[in-house]
């Protein structure tokens, strides 16, 4: 019944690859800018996790909602967030999506169904339930997808939200990016179960663990979950196993005291972009074309951000009350 279940056209496969590359290059650029001191505030990059963000968002309609976390650049881009305004936000410009009040951890583009990155770990899940409730009232088959980390799965908000979405059969998809660490804390230490998806059983919802390095595998699992949500059958929990290549934030080193170079290299060999090239059938010529288009887009975004003015002092009072 769902058109999403039809095999992906080559055009869509190419767009999936392009989006992954847009995220990778956006974040590499952002990190460089950060190291040069051009970014206002900290950033958390999701490099290594692009299969999750694009695999998930490639199943969504424009009028579906996402909510993400401190590590949300990827989801934002995959949902269609405007890049120039996003870059401007990172550089603390008045033209930024949040008028330089929110920064990297609060990127939002509500016009694209992006209801925000939320920096309080676990806080986005109850809000996703509420957006799901609004969608349930509206009856137009919209779904809300909430992204969160393995660490957030230990917050009470996760459990309360799964329970509420389940008893009310809301169109909410809980998408856990298990990148194996919450800052320096390894998931196995902090989590009662080997697979976070097992927790879905407690809420009578489907729980699936998928290879987050494989964008198509993620896409397929999400097609099921989205279809279920649109049909009013309630929430799903999707756990994508993945890895962040960079440190947790700011100056946290790539290997740190909590993980080894060997482990890092093992995951690096499964790089989601390399996997995507292969399974999506991206030719060398197509790769070149994608790279060129992405570089152009990024150059324009950066130019826009750099040319934009800083916020004026009186803006400190703006947008507090409606």
């Amino acid at each position, binding site marked *: 019944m769902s058109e999403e279940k039809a095999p992906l056209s080559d055009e869509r496969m190419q767009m999936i690859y392009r989006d992954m590359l847009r995220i990778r290059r956006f974040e590499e650029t952002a990190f460089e800018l950060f190291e040069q001191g051009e970014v206002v505030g900290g950033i958390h990059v999701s490099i290594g996790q692009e299969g999750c963000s694009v695999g998930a968002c490639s199943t969504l309609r424009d009028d579906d909602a996402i909510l993400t976390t401190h590590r949300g650049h990827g989801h934002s881009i995959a949902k269609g967030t405007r890049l120039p305004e996003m870059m401007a936000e990172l550089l603390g410009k008045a033209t930024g999506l949040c008028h330089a009040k929110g920064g990297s951890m609060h990127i939002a583009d509500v016009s694209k169904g992006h*209801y925000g990155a939320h920096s309080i770990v676990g806080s986005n899940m109850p809000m996703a339930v509420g957006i799901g409730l*609004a969608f349930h009232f509206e009856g137009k088959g919209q779904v809300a997808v909430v992204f969160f980390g393995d660490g957030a799965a230990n917050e009470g908000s996760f459990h309360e939200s799964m329970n509420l979405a389940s008893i009310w059969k809301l169109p909410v998809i809980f998408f856990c990016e298990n990148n194996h660490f919450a800052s320096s804390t390894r998931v196995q230490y902090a989590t009662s179960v080997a697979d976070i998806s097992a927790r879905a059983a407690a809420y009578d919802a489907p729980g699936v663990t998928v290879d987050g390095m494989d964008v198509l595998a993620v896409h397929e699992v999400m097609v099921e979950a989205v279809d279920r949500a649109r049909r009013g059958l309630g929430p799903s929990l999707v756990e994508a196993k993945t890895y962040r290549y960079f440190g947790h934030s700011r100056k946290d080193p790539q290997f740190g005291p909590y993980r080894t170079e060997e482990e890092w290299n093992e995951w690096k060999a499964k790089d989601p972009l390399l996997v995507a090239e292969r399974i999506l059938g991206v030719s060398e010529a197509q790769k070149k074309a994608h790279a060129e288009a992405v570089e152009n887009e990024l150059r324009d975004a950066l130019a826009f951000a750099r040319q934009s003015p800083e916020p004026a002092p009186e803006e400190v009072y703006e947008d507090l009350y409606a």
Partner: protein
Amino acid sequence: MPETKMRTISYAQAINEALHEEMERDEKVFLMGEDVALSAISPATAGLGERFGHERVRNTPISELGFTGAAVGAAMAGYRPVLDMRRIDFMMLAIDPIANQAAKLRYMLGGQVSVPLVVRAPEGGGSQNGPTHSQCLEAWFIQVPGLRVIVPSDPADAKGLLKSAIREDNPVLFVEYRALYSLEGPVPDGDHTEPIGKAAVKREGADITLIGIGSQARNCLEAAELLAGEGVDAEVVDPRTINPLDIEGLAASVRKTGFCLIAEEGHKSGGVGAEIAASIQEAAFGALEAPIARVAALDVPVPVHTKLEAIVLPSTEKIVAAANNLLS
């Protein structure tokens, strides 16, 4: 202009009417909370479940963090949720969605969203419910820019301000004093609303200004009656909303009387009274003939035993004594 017809109803009925009328007026308004759907539980929500059905009058599990965060999400997505917290003490489990999200999202997202959410938070002591079921915590929330905090003290204000709160496009903490639920008073007929951010003079007088918040606005009115018997003509002013606080409205009374006493049921340290006192001396220091006096709950938890509880909580008698002390 034809004279507005008045009816006498209770504070709880006033809240109930406001909810009925606003749900009738705007289909985006819906209610959530523990045990709200079945009318036997609270007079404030009686009849709503039957009238509007259990989709819009939605029982929740005991899940304060979850359903409060959900209300924030629904508000961002265009609805107007009204939450019933049962007691403000339980709201401590839901501080994150209120203080970190509802209050900040509009600002933090550069004006992309608004959060038209009302949290009804009944509170207060005097019923031997002990330390965790008697607190008055509105002072906590005036430290959070982005929220509106409303504290009505009589049926007309309860109805008029709740209706305004539901129409407000910002998150509102609507504090209800449980001890006032059975208080009766005149309420104008029809679509009665009150402005957010305006203090109200509840009794005119010339000798001293008694500023009372919530339950203590009532006690100030009683105290004024007793003081009148002693020849003191007290004015009673109710701020009604404490964010925004109508400092000019309060200062105007103090300029007239020269003496100011502030009564609240919250604890004295860091209380709403402390904020009002500081603001009044900024606005009207020259008018004050004596330091501002405060009557508040003692800085200990509210004990369950009737006698101990009475020692801790403010009362009409304590207000009268403090007023006499101030004037002597």
